[in-house]
């Protein structure tokens, strides 16, 4: 069991990195990766919400949608509603418990609702038929993978500001090409986790 969980997390962080090889969460990956500080904040906030969403998606799927046969036509609607309200809830709780933490990543929270990495992870859980512990591992792994990709990219982008980028490639274009090279590096992790 422990070995399996380890493989799920390593798989989500390195082998099938959610950003660089599954292409989830591209909008924040391009939008908030210009500074390392904000990248860390965004990554942590997303990891937090992802883990909570994994738990919520598991219970919603196995105790509400599946038993009543609602899965085919209510899954998308109910998942997006749960994510939206969960993000709102997390925002209120963080503000109440720790204003310092809220200042650190509170501004990123509303953005997370439309981050497709959260919805994507929620949809993968019923697809893989994971149990509760494995679902949490997937959520955590997805979040850590997202943070890793974001922080790596922000480090490169901070460095890139001092270098001459061709005029036409300035902005998103050079970020895409950099992401492509990063993704190529991550291809090297293929085979780290046994298939299946």
């Amino acid at each position, binding site marked *: 069991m422990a070995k399996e969980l380890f493989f799920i997390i390593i798989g989500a962080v390195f082998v099938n990195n959610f950003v*660089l*090889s*599954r*292409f*989830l*969460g*591209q*909008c924040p990956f*391009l939008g908030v990766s210009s500074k390392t500080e904000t990248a860390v904040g965004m990554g942590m906030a997303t990891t937090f919400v992802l883990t909570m969403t994994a738990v919520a998606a598991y219970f919603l799927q196995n105790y509400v949608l599946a038993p009543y046969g609602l899965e*085919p*036509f*209510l*899954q*998308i*609607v109910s998942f*997006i*509603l749960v994510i*939206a309200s969960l993000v709102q809830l997390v925002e209120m709780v963080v503000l109440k418990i720790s204003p310092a933490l809220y200042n650190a990543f509170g501004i990123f929270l509303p953005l997370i*609702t*439309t*981050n*497709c990495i*959260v*919805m*994507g992870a929620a*949809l*993968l859980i019923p*697809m893989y038929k994971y149990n509760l512990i494995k679902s949490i591992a997937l959520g955590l792994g997805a979040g850590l993978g997202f943070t890793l990709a974001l922080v790596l990219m922000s480090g490169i982008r901070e460095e890139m500001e001092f270098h001459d980028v*061709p*005029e*036409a*490639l300035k*902005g*998103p*274009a*050079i*970020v*895409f*090409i*950099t*992401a*492509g*090279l990063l*993704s*190529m590096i*991550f*291809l090297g992790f293929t085979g780290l986790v046994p298939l299946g």
Partner: protein
Amino acid sequence: MQLFKDFINGLWNENPIFRMVIGICSALAVTTAASNGIAMGLALTFVLTCSSILVSLLRSVIPAKVRIPCYIIVVATFTTVVDLFMKAYFPALYEVLGIFIPLIVVNCIVLARAEAFASKVGLARAIADALGMGLGYTWAITLISMIRELMGAGTLFGYRVMGEGFTPWVSAILPPGAFIVMGILVGLINVINRKTAKRTQCH
């Protein structure tokens, strides 16, 4: 004239993929073969057009404070329609596109157009804008997927195009190829835009 302007806007000036660079998750993920690009594009165009129609019709009914949740429900409903339709009639395609069909619900393009455009204008303009944006998205991702398929497999829409001596560049179909092709295309479109902008300045 205004309608035509709204329609053209999404095709080039504010092309969601190449100019605004939003909603690119699906544009990178499903573009391994040209047919996937077209299917994904049409699915998104359908959701975008239907939700723009509904948002535009309901714009005086929806209270401003809860407008975002309302838009999300509208978008989620039409995404479910597409999801069930594709699962029933195109199971093979549905298998390939995977979670990216349900993920239309969190696609920035749909929500952005509902919030920035459809909720402010009449029905006709909302439809023109949605069709323009949807088709702009479709041509953009079809172009990306054609380039990737051609380089990665030497085929186009499944038909062999390259000669016998062609060695496929497998990386183009793998994730890195998506990023690199996308980056180069965005750069090229920048160059073209700069050229046309200069020409209009001279006249």
